[in-house]
């Protein structure tokens, strides 16, 4: 045995295979050489010569290595040889079609990029918009079984059942029990209501959590799965003091105790009171709407305990009651109408049976809504319909553009395809190739779109929820259903657009397509594309008009003088009363907090108040002394300390702010008030209000008190940027409910302010959470959230639409120049100047833009009705806005048209005549 390795290896240079494979090849070739040598030696040859001769067979230079590389490293998917089974051939052909399409597209990068960008701009925003919409509104409430059988009910005396206008009436536990017993149309009737409470535990820093009080059967009625422990027992529903037990969400159980099962029997505190965890529900269930965030449930009977009610009668008496919102599961085969009819009988029957306790029930009826979260969905309805409209428009626009560009391409390649046909390619093959190209573009565009969607989704979410606390985990997932739908539509439209030219092609007679630069079909295609381009311009003009209207609105809203200066002011809410602090201790707590914060570096003013502007409202009735029989005035009220007007920079136009001593006066003594200018005008006309008396309700509201006016403050916007403002009255901090918010004017970043306030609060009482720390500007922004979303969406859409329309128009003009090359050549040959040719192209553009523009203005005049309610300080037909939008259209059209027009002037007559 000779060692051939060195000889062989030198001839295998360049072959890269796995070492085992190389050893196999070496072995096998060595064996072959051995055999050759043995045969030659057997025939009498000298061994040395035999070796050389055997090796000489390998010596065609590089031959062995080349062939081995070819068969070892190339995939075995070459076309099967004749006679091989036909299976697998279809796939192989498609793979090579895709490769071919990619090569072709690389040769026209502008075309490919246009389509891909268009698709990305279509799929991305549409997917993002609809994902957020779906996440917010349409998706079923997670963790609830069979929601089609559920009905939400609210009990009250309704003026209008559709809008929910009326007075809510609570149902007591005893009444609820009677209803359940009598009801035939439903299998479950559970009370579920939500509010906030302080939640704390060993591993849970005190927070303000959304909690829900429920009847014991609530989880059964909803069909919520438990991962550990149990639901509430019927006896835990029995009042009056209830059992201090709770059911928690799996997420909370894991955060607090490490695991769901580990949570059972453990304690957390609600409002500082110990509660035992008896059950853990699946982490996906967080309450009754898609975006609820309830972590804790407790039995309704425990409400009095948790909220430190001294009088439990609201629970045990038939006339009391804590529940007015219910979830009802219909009996199989029963409808909501049947349920309504039954409740319409049962509720008045309760009034008849217990006329004293249930006297309110005579006029009570149940307001039913199908499924869960209807009220929540109603609130988002206008936002959602806008989102959907925008998504749909974008999708249509994008698809139209893709179709346009693909058709343009088809016309351009008509000659190539005609030649292929002439050379014997089947039409089916051409269609297949066209479709492959469309599919390659669609897939690439879709991928880019998904990337864009991921980014946009976050942007939209932030727009929708300005001022969401930083530590709140918010992120709607990219919705796969929505993505699939958008992908489906755009890919389908890409394929369709691939089909149209392929079909157009069917009518092309071979001869003219090959010889002339086009044929009839080109003219037909051009008209169609002209209409498409015009329609796109119209649509984008309408959208841009809408977005400009909203730009003006935003500007005007931001320019509104609110009467106070929110910049740099943040609110920090604390609720010691909820944790059982008596009034005096709560007041002391706030004074302590204020003292600790005042004078910190960067903290300019620290004020205490009952409420924050653009937070919540408190109404008070003030006697109108201007006439003897005038009804009392409804005014907004806030109880404030001596620094409030400094903190918010509200001007005191007459008199003075409260002194520190005045701010400490409570309801038990006489106290002064400050009124705003509009209240001063209403009550006292032009005379000086200082020192005059204002008649307001005393504590308990059954008696009246007279309060001297010590100051007049400038009018402020309390709750809305637009619309008429109610007059305002300021009372001393200790009145009404006492302090509940610290307002800090500071130059420090928000995070630093929040940290400082929290640290100071912890020093006083580590179990009390500071909640809703946020800049007052964010509170104001919340009121603008809707306009802001409209604004961003419409602007985004409008400019994308303009970009798409420009692309479409450019393609149309460029193509028309190519098609008219011969005509232009002839014109030039006959003495037409370049300027005239230039004008000719521009005139064509102007026609399209003119017609599209007119249609667009009409569309805008009609369509802006949809956003009319969002406008402020500008009418929906504002001529300046329409002029600006039209100007933008003209600029874009001419900027687009200039390039094809210039290329038309560069046509050489001689070349033009030669194109045929």
């Amino acid at each position, binding site marked *: *045995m000779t060692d051939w390795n060195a000889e062989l290896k030198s001839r295998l240079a360049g072959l890269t295979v796995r070492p085992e494979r190389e050893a*196999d*090849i070496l*072995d*096998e*070739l*060595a*064996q*072959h*050489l*051995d*055999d*050759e040598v043995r*045969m030659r030696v057997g025939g009498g040859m000298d061994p040395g010569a035999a070796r050389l001769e055997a090796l000489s*067979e*390998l010596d*065609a230079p590089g*031959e*062995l290595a080349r*062939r*081995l590389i*070819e*068969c*070892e490293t190339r995939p*075995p998917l070459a076309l099967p*040889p*004749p*006679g*091989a*089974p036909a299976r697998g051939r279809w796939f192989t*052909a498609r793979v*090579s*079609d895709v490769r*071919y399409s990619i090569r072709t597209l690389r040769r026209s990068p502008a075309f490919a990029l246009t389509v891909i960008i268009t698709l990305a701009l279509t799929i991305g925003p549409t997917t993002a918009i609809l994902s957020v919409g779906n996440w917010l509104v349409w998706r079923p409430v997670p963790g609830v079984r069979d929601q089609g059988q559920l009905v939400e009910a609210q009990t009250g005396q309704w003026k209008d059942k559709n809008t929910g206008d009326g007075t809510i009436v609570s149902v007591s536990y005893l009444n609820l029990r009677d209803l359940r017993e009598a009801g035939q149309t439903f299998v479950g009737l559970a009370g579920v209501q939500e509010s906030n409470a302080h939640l704390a535990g060993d591993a849970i820093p005190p927070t303000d959590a959304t909690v829900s009080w429920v009847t014991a059967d609530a989880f059964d009625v909803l069909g919520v799965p438990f991962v550990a422990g149990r639901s509430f027992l019927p006896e835990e529903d029995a009042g009056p003091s209830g059992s201090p037990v709770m059911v928690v969400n799996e997420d909370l159980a894991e955060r607090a105790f490490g695991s769901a099962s580990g949570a059972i029997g453990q304690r957390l505190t609600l409002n500082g009171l110990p509660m035992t965890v008896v059950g853990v529900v699946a982490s996906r269930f967080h309450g009754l709407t898609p975006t609820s965030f309830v972590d804790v449930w407790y039995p309704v009977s425990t409400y009095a305990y948790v909220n430190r009610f001294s009088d439990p009668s609201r629970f045990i008496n038939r006339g009391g009651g804590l529940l007015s919102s219910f979830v009802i599961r219909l009996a199989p085969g029963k409808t909501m109408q049947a349920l309504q009819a039954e409740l319409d009988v049962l509720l008045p029957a309760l009034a008849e049976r217990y006329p004293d306790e249930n006297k309110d029930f005579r006029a009570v009826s149940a307001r039913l809504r199908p499924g869960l979260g209807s009220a929540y969905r109603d609130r988002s309805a206008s936002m959602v319909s806008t989102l959907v409209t925008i998504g749909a428009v974008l999708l249509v626009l994008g698809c139209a553009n893709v179709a346009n560009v693909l058709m343009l391409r088809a016309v351009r390649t008509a000659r190539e395809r005609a030649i*292929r046909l002439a*050379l*014997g*390619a089947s039409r089916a*093959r051409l269609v297949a*190739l066209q479709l492959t190209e469309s599919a390659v573009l669609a897939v690439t565009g879709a991928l880019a779109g998904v990337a864009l969607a991921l980014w946009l989704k976050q942007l939209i979410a932030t727009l929708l929820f300005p001022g969401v606390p930083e530590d709140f985990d918010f992120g709607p997932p990219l919705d796969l259903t929505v993505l699939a739908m958008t992908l489906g539509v755009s890919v389908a439209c890409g394929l369709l657009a691939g089909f149209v030219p392929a079909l157009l092609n069917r009518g092309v007679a071979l001869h003219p397509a090959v010889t002339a630069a086009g044929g009839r079909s080109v003219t037909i295609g051009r008209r169609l594309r002209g209409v498409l381009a015009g329609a796109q311009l119209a649509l984008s003009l309408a959208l841009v008009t809408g977005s400009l209207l909203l730009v003006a609105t935003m500007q005007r809203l931001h320019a509104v003088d609110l009467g106070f200066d929110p910049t740099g002011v943040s609110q920090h809410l604390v609720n010691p009363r909820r944790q059982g602090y008596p009034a005096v201790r709560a007041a002391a707590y706030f004074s302590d907090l204020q003292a600790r914060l005042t004078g910190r570096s960067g903290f300019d003013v620290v004020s205490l108040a009952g409420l924050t502007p653009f937070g919540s409202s408190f109404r008070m009735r003030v006697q109108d002394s201007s006439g003897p029989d005038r009804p009392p005035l409804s005014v907004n009220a806030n109880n404030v300390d001596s620094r409030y007007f400094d903190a918010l920079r509200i001007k005191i136009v007459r008199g003075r702010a409260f002194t520190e001593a005045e701010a400490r006066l409570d309801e038990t003594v006489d106290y002064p008030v400050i009124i705003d200018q509009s209240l001063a005008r209403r009550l006292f006309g032009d005379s000086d209000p200082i020192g005059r008396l204002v008649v307001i309700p005393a504590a308990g509201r059954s008696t009246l008190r007279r309060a001297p006016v010590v100051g007049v403050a400038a009018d402020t916007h309390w709750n809305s940027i637009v619309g008429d403002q109610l007059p305002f009255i300021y009372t001393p901090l200790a009145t009404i409910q006492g302090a509940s918010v610290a307002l800090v004017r500071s130059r420090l970043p928000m995070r630093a302010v929040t940290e400082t306030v929290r640290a100071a609060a912890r020093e006083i009482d580590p179990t009390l959470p500071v909640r809703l720390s946020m800049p007052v500007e964010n509170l104001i922004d919340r009121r603008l959230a809707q306009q802001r979303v409209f604004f961003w969406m419409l602007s985004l859409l409008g400019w994308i639409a303009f970009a798409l329309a420009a692309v479409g128009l450019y393609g149309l003009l460029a193509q028309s120049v190519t098609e008219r090359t011969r005509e232009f050549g002839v014109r030039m040959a006959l003495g037409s100047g370049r300027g005239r040719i230039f004008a000719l192209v521009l005139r064509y553009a102007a026609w399209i833009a003119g017609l599209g523009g007119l249609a667009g203005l009409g569309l805008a005049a009609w369509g802006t009705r949809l956003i009319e309610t969002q406008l402020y300080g500008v009418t929906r037909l504002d001529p300046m806005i329409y002029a600006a939008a039209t100007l933008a259209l003209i600029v874009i059209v001419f900027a687009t048209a200039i390039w094809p027009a210039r290329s038309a002037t560069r046509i050489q007559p001689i070349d033009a005549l030669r194109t045929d």
Partner: protein
Amino acid sequence: MTYIRSGPSGRELKKGSAELLILSLVEDQPRHGYDIGRLIQMRSGGTLKFNVASLYPLLYRLEKRGWIEGRWVERAGQRRRRLYRLTTEGRKVLAAQRGGWLAFVRAVSRIAKVEI
């Protein structure tokens, strides 16, 4: 990229014929590479000859397609040998190629008026 619908091209035929030869040789019994090369040369009376540089790559290609299957056989004191045998799929291909070949040869001889 149009596929011209016609019979196998010349190059394909030559490649096809080499494949046909190899497949036929391993049809009845497994053989090693040297054996295959030698048999082709012997049975064609020296007209057809494969050298190492084309024989082995072709064997590997056929093996990759799953038409033949190689297996190492070890004997004491000798270098291990690789024996190739026909797979089930290879058997089908062989049958098809034989048919195709026959048709081709007949067609050519009819046109070229060659007596076989």
